[in-house]
Structures are given as structure tokens and as C-alpha cells.
């Protein structure tokens, strides 16, 4: 906050180093939750407003500018052709959305990143198995804009919001299941009303409760769960993922020292999964987090966010602990015992 004010009052000049500090904030919301002062709710908003000022002054860091350009031109940060967006679902029998009860909104990371795709596939299979009426938008799907909004590019965000809102309206979408907590966040908080938005962990927990998904075979794994910031602190959902894991025979759930409200961010928010202002050094958040998971004695670190899967997946390689710890999305973990259903 001091640096933001110093920059606004021209006590310090804009610099690459200042930019790194500003963009390294992942909007994890820990400050909002921990700060005792009455302005705590505004802290993250102040970061976003400052980034808007950076955009307005044409000072955006090159990596961030590239992220914006890619989203605007391709609808995803990876410069992947739009027509490839639904390719992850080929051969799975998942139908295009055409008025089913739920739209399964996959998002950029779930659509294009290999780890995200694994989670998307696992979730698609589970929803199919449970008889859920759902479809995907495939090549019609567009970036949800959560990161663009957090990074202060309000023009592109408004464009995405209008485009998506119109698409949802035209397609008759009323209920959305999101793979990513980031999409869950932006659809609930920034999009026009009238949509019922669910993170997939709530849907799966309810399907288990209703007996529509029955994890039967034993997994025999010690699993720790990493609370994603946009599902936990931003949305208050801590129980559904744990209910799913607790329902799987043979899963021993062990908590890391920092969990739930006190969970430690993977470092991927505010598009850091792409811009990576933390770098991969040993003190990067993702590496700290997988070391914490290792200390818990878990052999599997469960995630409920494709961005976390990407960040933590890279971190176990950097730490050289791939033999001891695997990162898996909860949908993938549940998929194994349910496949024998």
C-alpha cells in the first residue's frame, strides 16, 4: 500500500521492479482475511485499481501485455486456435451444450493445459456416469475473464463479460458447473444475475450423497488437500472437496499445517500461472507449498483448481519429489474408485 501511494504521489517512479511487486500479488485474499482493520475488504480492490491505473498509463509489463493480447485475439493465453478449445473432449461422448440442465464451463487452463485437460476429462466422465444432464461449449467457449479483471484490463474484461453473457443467454444457460474456482469467482461476482453457478466439487459431493456416484474400490492412499484461494477464501467452500475425499474408501485425509482459511496460495492467481513473476526459485510459493504437503506425509496432493494443478505440478519437478508426491485433481482421484461402479 505504501508503494502504491508513493507511486500515485510521484515519490517513486514506475519501474520493472515495482511492476513485479504489483503483479506478483495473486489476489489470494489472505490479506483481506487476516487484516484486522475495517478497510480490509478493500485491499485486493486497491491492488486491482492500481493495475487499472497502470493500464490507463500504458505501463503494463510486457508479459502481462502479452497475456492481454492473447486473450483478446485467441480467447486464451496460450495462443491456441479457438477451434481446438473442445479437443480435450474428443471421443468421450460429451455433448455440445444445447439446453441441458448444466453448462460445464471448462475454462482456458482446463481446455488447453495437459494437467487441466486431465481434470476436465475426469470430471466429464464422472458427470456422465452420474447421469447429469450437461454439455460443453467447445470452440464456442470464451475466456471467463477472471484474471483479466484482476489484472486491471477493464476494457477487455467488459468485452469478455458481454460476449459470454450473450452466449449464455442465446444458448439458454441457467446453471453452470465450473472446473476452475477462478471462473466460479468471476461468474458469481462480476457477471449479470440469473445464473446459478456451482464449482464442480459441490456437484460431486452432492452426487455422492445422493448415491449417484459410488466410490467402491479402495485407494489406500494418504491424501492431503490444497484449498485453492478462489474456492476457499474467496468463496468459503472448504467442506465439499473434503467430503468427496472422505467418501473414497482407503483414503486417509491428512491436513497440511496451513489449511482452509489459512491455506497457502500456489502462486498462480492473477495470471501468475502464465506470467510467473515469482519464478521457480526455491522460495516460490508453489515450492513452499509442495514441501508443506511432503511434511504432512501425504503421497497425493489433491487439488480442485487446474491453475493449482499446473503450479504445484511444476513445483514437484523443481523440488525433485515426483517419486514421493503426485498432484491430482479431486475429479481424477474420485474417478479411479468410481470407474468400478
Amino acid at each position, binding site marked *: 500500500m*505504501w508503494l502504491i501511494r508513493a507511486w500515485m504521489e510521484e515519490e*517513486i517512479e514506475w*519501474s520493472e*521492479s*515495482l511492476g513485479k511487486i504489483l503483479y506478483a500479488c495473486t489476489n489470494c485474499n489472505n490479506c483481506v482475511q487476516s487484516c484486522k482493520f475495517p478497510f480490509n475488504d478493500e485491499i485486493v480492490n486497491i491492488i486491482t485499481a492500481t493495475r487499472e491505473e497502470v493500464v490507463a498509463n500504458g505501463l503494463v509489463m510486457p508479459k502481462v501485455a502479452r497475456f492481454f493480447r492473447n486473450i483478446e485475439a485467441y480467447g486464451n493465453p496460450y495462443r491456441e486456435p479457438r477451434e481446438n478449445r473442445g479437443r480435450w473432449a474428443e471421443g468421450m461422448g460429451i455433448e455440445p451444450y444445447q439446453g441441458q440442465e448444466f453448462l460445464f464451463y471448462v475454462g482456458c487452463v482446463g481446455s488447453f493445459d495437459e494437467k487441466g485437460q486431465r481434470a476436465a476429462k475426469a470430471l466429464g466422465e464422472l458427470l456422465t456416469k452420474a447421469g447429469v444432464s450437461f454439455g460443453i461449449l467447445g470452440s464456442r467457449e470464451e475466456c471467463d475473464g477472471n484474471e483479466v479483471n484482476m489484472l486491471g484490463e477493464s476494457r477487455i474484461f467488459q468485452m469478455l463479460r458481454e460476449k459470454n453473457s450473450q452466449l449464455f443467454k442465446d444458448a439458454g444457460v441457467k446453471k453452470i458447473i465450473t472446473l476452475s474456482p477462478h471462473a466460479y469467482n468471476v461468474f458469481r461476482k462480476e457477471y449479470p444475475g440469473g445464473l446459478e453457478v456451482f464449482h464442480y466439487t459441490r456437484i460431486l459431493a452432492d452426487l455422492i450423497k445422493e448415491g449417484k456416484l459410488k466410490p467402491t474400490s479402495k485407494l489406500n492412499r494418504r491424501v492431503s488437500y490444497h484449498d485453492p484461494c478462489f474456492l476457499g477464501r474467496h468463496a468459503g467452500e472448504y467442506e465439499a472437496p473434503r467430503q468427496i475425499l472422505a467418501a473414497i474408501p482407503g483414503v486417509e485425509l491428512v491436513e497440511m499445517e496451513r489449511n482452509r482459511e489459512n491455506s497457502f496460495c500456489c502462486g498462480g492467481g492473477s495470471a501468475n500461472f502464465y506470467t510467473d513473476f515469482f519464478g521457480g526459485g526455491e522460495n516460490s510459493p508453489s515450492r513452499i507449498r509442495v514441501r508443506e504437503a511432503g511434511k504432512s506425509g501425504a503421497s497425493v496432493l489433491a487439488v480442485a483448481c487446474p491453475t493449482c494443478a499446473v503450479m504445484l505440478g511444476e513445483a514437484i519437478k523443481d523440488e525433485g519429489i515426483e517419486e514421493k508426491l503426485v498432484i491430482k485433481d479431486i475429479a481424477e482421484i474420485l474417478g479411479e474408485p468410481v470407474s468400478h461402479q
Partner: protein
Amino acid sequence: MKEEFLSRLAEIVGADYVSDRPEELYLYSRDPGAQKPRRADGVVMPGTVDEVQQIVRLANREKIAITPMGAGLTLSALTVPLKGGIVLDMKRLDRIIEVNQASRYAVIEAGVTQAALRAYLEKHHPGLQHSTPESPPTATIVGNILIHGHGHLTPRYGVNSQMVNGMEVVLPTGELCRLGSCSVSPKWFSRDPLPDLMGLFLGWLGTTGIVTKLSIQLFPKPAFRDLLLFSSDSVELIPEIIAELSQINLLENCFIITQEKPRWAQHIFYIIVVSGQSKEEFETKKELHNRIFQKYPDKILPVTEEPALTPLRERFLGVPPFAATAADFRKGGGFEYTGAILPIEVIPQAWRSGIEIAHKYDLLYQLGIQLLPNGHSVMLAYSYPFNRAVAEEAGRARGALDETNRLTLELGGIVWKPELPAQKLILEKMDANTRQLMDRIKKTLDPNDIMNPGNWEVT
């Protein structure tokens, strides 16, 4: 600062932990208090004691000033360089090395925060606690101790610097030294019966060495704990009440406060923290304390109703007490207080004059006493919140602080953790031979005058 010097620092600690970038120096060139910014030329964050030693040796060779820093929360800019040079940020030295359950002490590194030790004890030694100051959780334990800080157990067990069993110190010339029982034993359990060399580093504001490890005493955590709240309008009665409280000597903590806003707070509130291991002990202590205040039915009343009850409980029941819930902070976030360590008999005059000074500088008064061990003295905090964005208002706060410090000294008190102007006032008033002794000690330990120079500067 020379590029070459920074490169040498980078060779010692790694490039990630050295900086002279303007935005980082901006942060290290000021603190949250009312003092004007002063420029740091660089910052370095050592990760090991050996790195601290190498930095000190290098700084001696190059005659570069070092300002050691914990969390930088003194509010009196004691970790902001007065004569440039580097800030030695100790946050990376953050290991809790040992907790001895039987002898009840913790050995910690200099960067361990209040919150970190508290959380560690709650998890691994739930029956133990350390004396926690009324400061943000990021404040370091060592920083608090080195300025003779107070904590929630101070009235009962002593000023926090009295709770030190031992220290490891990097001397200004780079040698590593252990003090207390750890100098002759693997156990960090006692300060006595050796010559008390720790006094060479406590209260010296980082001018005599760099404490890298420290053993702090721990205390039993009581099963029962509650507040007794009373209000009064008689300033004259305060010394008598303190004497009564000291007579039974059973309290855990005691505050006496008033503030101008909100309006309900314009009385004198006694906040007595009572704790006990058994219900019987706890109830007996409450009863004995209640009896003291019941002796003055015309002058003191129990606080049983709103609007005072909830805010006082919210502020003082927790450990640490949470000042911000009751403080009338100004928009703009500036806040500084001066702590006057006072003999008991001058409290009424100090209290009344504090209100007058606040009004003279068009500031809101906010006074708070914490009883010091066994009621032999008190720390009276005169707080002056100000809007950081309004330079004129910060200037008024500085004026009020200076006048309050002069008052403290006139009354025979001493300014706690004094900012530079207050240090000068103290040195002016100090016995000349004592002043010379301080100077000789500093020059002996720090021949190149590199340690936080400008502080406690006699010549």
C-alpha cells in the same frame, strides 16, 4: 552506494537478498511513525549467522553503516538509518531452535515473530506462553526485547528484556559471542550467576552488536482468564489504586486508559486481567481485586453496560490485546506514541499534562498506562494518531511528541524507545560520567562506528 560493495554483499547472501532498488529503499527509509524519512542506501537479508558475520566484516573494511532491523515496528524510526548505509533485515533468520518444556524457555533466531512463536507453542507446547506485546503479530521477539519492550505478562513477571536467559551476538567487529548460561553450557536456561553482559546489548538500539539468537523465558498458560473493568474520573486516585493492586500482587496484567473519542471513553478505565490455573484460584483472585475497587464506591464503578463493555473486552481480553479496535486512528494511517516510563507518584500530573499537550497541538488525547513489574513504575503511552497524507498534521504529531518527551524528563521519568530527538533530550539530562561510559563502551565495541550510527551519539 558503490556497486562493488553491493556485489560483495550479493556474493555473501545471494543476489535475491540484496537490493538498492528505489521502491525497496523507499520502504526501508521510513517506518509507520511520525519521523521524517531517512535514506537507506541498500538492504541485505542474511540467511545464516555466518552471513551476518561476513557482512559485518565487510562493512568494517568499507566503513559502511549497518542498521539492524527486525520488523521495523518501533514507530520511533530506530531501524531507519540515520547516516545512510545498509539496513540488515533479519527476517530470514526465523528458526525456532528449541523449546525446553521443563526449564520453560525457547531459543529463537532474531527474525522469529510474535505470531510464529505463539502458533508454535500452541501446537507443540500448549501449556506454555511467552510475554506478548501489544503490537502487530509480525513484530519480532528479539526486536521487542532489545528495546526493553513490554508484554502481557510484564506486570507479573517482568519487562520482556528481563526474561532473557541468553544471547548469541555478532559483535560490531564480526566476532560471535554467547552470553548467559549458553556461554558455558549447552543449556540456555539462565542469565545468572555470570557477569551480566547482556546489558551491553539491551536498550542500545542496535549500536553495540547484532543479536542473532536469544533464549526467552516461557510461562505457564492459565486455564482461566478474564477481565475486571472499572471506571473512574479521579486522576489523583491512580497511585493509590496501583499501591493496592501491588499489595495483593495477584494480577496478570493491568491497563489504565482514557481517550477522547469515542465519547464514552472520556473516563479513566481500569482493566485488570486476572488468570488462574484452577477455578478456585481464579475466583479468589477476582474476589480480592473486586474488593479493592469496592472500597471506593463514590469514585470507582464497575463497567457493566454498553457502550463501554464490549469494546473494552474486545480490545483487552485477547493475547495480545488489540489496540486498534479501540484506538481512534485517523484516516491516513499515521500513528506514533511516546512511552513514558514513570515513577508512580507523578502519574496524575503526567496524565493531566498529556491531555493539555494533545489539545495544544489540536490532536485527540489517548492515554494508556501499563503497570510495570510489581507496580514499581508504569509505562504511560501518549498516542498521537495522524493522517499520513497531511504533512502539517504529521508535523503537529511530532511537536506533541517532543513536548511530551520533555514533560516526561521534567517529571523525572524516562522516554522509552526514544526517537532521535528524544535520545538527545535524554543524553542532555544524563549524568556526564554515565554519558562518557556509554561512549567508551560504544567506541570499544564498535571502533569504526558502523552500528546504527547517530543513535545514542554522545560526541
